[in-house]
């Protein structure tokens, strides 16, 4: 079947994001279903500190144990919420884990080493922003209202314990149900990201890469539009290394790993539009601060 170049590119770009994301989603769903069915509630609450700030700080480092990028972390965070984690706690985990995981740290180091403070900016900035957003959400009078009603209802019910064959049957059922929620979100997000790639020339943005403020703003927009996996986004950012200031690159690596078009589609399965707007605004603001600080120091 012959399709026009632009439609062919749109399909290729969309499918590439889908094929790249879905395996991570499947892995995230597997871990999530495993936690829901085989990890006792008490274990999670026993391991985590009691004080909210410390609890969120520890949760934001849990990404170290799960080398899964942002797509896989959404089902994982949903599973953790079904096990009793609060909205601010899961949001903190969700935003920090795609940055504070070993694969991301290693690939960022491989791409940039210690140059321009990009690696440090990404790790420290990601940790601080995720915890800041968690703290802000914790100040909400009723954080459960930040969840879509259907998921909030599921969190209330939780996952009652089952044993033996029934547990496996339920796990299979949960797996398909969770994939059924995630897949349309991935496809819709990927289609939007693919359309932006197909129709908007990137090089138009690269023209302002040398400006200390504009480079930061442009990279915020680029990170939001181009849904690149956080596991390897450093290599992609490297291609802008010669045209963009380090602060701009750090912004791309911090903000893009937390929020992008594909992630928003995924997160919409769980959080309300208002909550996502708040999280996106704070993440963008925080990432911009990281970028501006790096540009002013470098």
């Amino acid at each position: 079947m012959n399709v026009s170049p632009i439609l062919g590119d749109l399909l290729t770009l969309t499918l590439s994001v889908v094929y790249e994301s879905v395996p991570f989603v499947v892995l995230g769903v597997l871990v999530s279903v495993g936690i829901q069915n085989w990890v006792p509630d008490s274990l999670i609450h026993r391991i985590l500190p009691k004080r909210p700030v410390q609890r969120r700080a520890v949760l934001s480092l849990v990404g170290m144990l799960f080398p899964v990028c942002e797509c896989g972390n959404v089902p994982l965070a949903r599973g953790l919420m079904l096990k009793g984690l609060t909205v601010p706690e899961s949001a903190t985990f969700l935003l920090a884990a795609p940055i504070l995981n070993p694969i991301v740290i290693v690939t960022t180091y491989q791409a940039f080493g210690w140059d321009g403070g990009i690696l440090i900016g990404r790790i420290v900035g990601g940790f601080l922003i995720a915890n800041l957003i968690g703290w802000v959400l914790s100040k909400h009078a009723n954080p459960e209202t930040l969840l879509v009603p259907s998921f909030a209802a599921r969190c209330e019910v939780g996952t009652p314990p089952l044993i033996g064959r029934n547990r496996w049957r339920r796990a299979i059922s949960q797996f398909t149900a969770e994939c059924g929620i995630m897949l349309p979100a991935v496809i819709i997000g990927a289609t939007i990201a693919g359309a932006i790639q197909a129709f908007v020339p990137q090089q138009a943005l690269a023209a302002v890469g040398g400006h200390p403020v504009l480079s930061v703003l442009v990279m915020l927009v680029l990170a939001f539009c181009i849904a690149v996996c956080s596991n390897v986004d450093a290599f992609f950012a490297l291609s802008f290394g010669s045209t963009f200031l380090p602060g701009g690159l750090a912004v791309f690596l911090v903000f893009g790993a937390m929020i992008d078009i594909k992630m928003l589609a995924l997160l919409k399965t769980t959080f309300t539009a208002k909550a996502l707007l708040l999280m996106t605004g704070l993440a963008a603001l925080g990432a911009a601060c990281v970028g501006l600080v790096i540009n002013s120091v470098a």
Partner: protein
Amino acid sequence: MPKRSRASRPVWKPREWGLVLLLLVVCGSIVTLAGTGQLQLYIHPRYTVFASAMAGIGVVVGMLAVILRFGRNAASTGEDGHEHDHDHEHQTDSGARTWLAAAGRTIGILTCVVVAAGMLVVPPATLSTRTTVDGLAGGGSATGKSSMAVEPGAVASLNTHELGSLIRHTTDVRSLVGEPVVVTGFVTADANDNNILFVTRFVIACCAVDAQPVGVPVRAPGWQAGAQWEPLADGDWVTVQGTLVANPGGSSLTALVVSPTAIEMIEEPQEPYEYE
């Protein structure tokens, strides 16, 4: 033994069947593409094993779910459907918001159907060359490390994107003059100098969405008309042999170009992309 009543048997709604079908189509496509070696048209080969393993699990569990759905004991396991997605918003709103939500859902479903159909019907394809027009404007490559050290004589072993990066970023032009090179890629016209064409490859860090065009400039006056070689056009795949020389002039921004001794038209190779 009393016959199981029809009402006690869990029933999947069309939407749930559709979602399981979607899971099977997406994961099945990944497994098939990995099996035929075409998954790398979309994602970096480093993910092939991981992607096919996870997609394989998706297919197996999806099929188990279908089998269980038809199983006699499914209703008694506690998986009575309440675990399924209830992510539709509760219908408390009315008027415009309800209409908008319905329109959004319809667009979402259509998008999923079109993309799934694209997986099944449209043959796997690389990106077209149309995206290189901006990427190569101004000469050189759009990607690459800012510094590359290459031993004399090792230039010939570089692939297209490494050579493109080297030419673009080197500050020691004279040390590279006279180095023999062999490059393969598709033809892209230089936006500034019609005597120069770029032998171009897309370089992928993660998946096709981050593909960056990288080109090696070749000075071949009259290349469109086929003065010395076969006439070439944008998008033609070629292998070029030659040596690096200082760009003798013109308006191209590149300081080094390949002076070709042979330009051979070829079919698109099995691995059209290069990878970071």
